């Protein structure tokens, strides 16, 4: 059986072409891509870099669950969810989600579902570094 999900956590640079090539298929009329990028500020404060760390074996399992749920929930062909860990500079890419489908609506919806769910359930954390300190994102009320 053809593998329909690609899940990756890596300390290397994420590869957009790998995600695209994995989901691309002759039966598909479209591919939706979400590319998360490191923003240069948060609440008007300048960010110097983000440091991502994860509970990797569990994060892989949770990412796989999201991909499997997306395949059940939406009429899509393939889905790739790749996440980077380690220090990322402004403009670099912490996450890529690619989804292919026969018709575009399912790909858009599955892509949004995947990134929204990832942000709620996957045990990965980012620490924002500023000129004058650092903070774990979402940790404080």
């Amino acid at each position: 059986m053809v593998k329909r999900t690609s899940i990756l956590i890596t300390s290397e640079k994420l590869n957009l072409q790998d995600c695209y090539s994995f989901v691309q298929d002759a039966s598909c009329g479209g591919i939706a891509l979400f590319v998360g990028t490191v923003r240069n500020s948060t609440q008007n404060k300048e960010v110097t870099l983000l440091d991502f760390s994860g509970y990797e074996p569990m994060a892989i399992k949770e990412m796989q669950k999201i991909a499997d749920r997306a395949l059940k929930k939406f009429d899509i062909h393939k889905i790739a969810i790749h996440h980077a860990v380690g220090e990322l500079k402004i403009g670099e890419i912490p996450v890529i989600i690619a989804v292919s489908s026969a018709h575009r609506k399912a790909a858009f919806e599955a892509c949004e579902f995947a990134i929204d769910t990832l942000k709620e359930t996957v045990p990965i954390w980012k620490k924002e570094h500023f000129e004058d300190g650092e903070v774990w994102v979402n940790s404080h009320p």
Partner: protein
Amino acid sequence: MEIQLLFFGITTDIVGVNKMKYTLKEGATVGNLKKLLIAKYSALKNINDFAIAINEEYVKDTTIITKNDIVAIIPPVSGG
């Protein structure tokens, strides 16, 4: 009984290590463990509620912990 605790994100900074052996009463629940940890590390009170995973799966407060479980303290995630 002995279990293994893993800490991530801000909880690593609060506790000062990313893992430790921990001794717990037989039959203790996840909720019991949370209370014990908050009593020991009061700074855990100041963060958003943390989740617990046992052997890499999220569990509820009512789940009973068993010997040799790998229990992870999961503060609010912020991937993506």
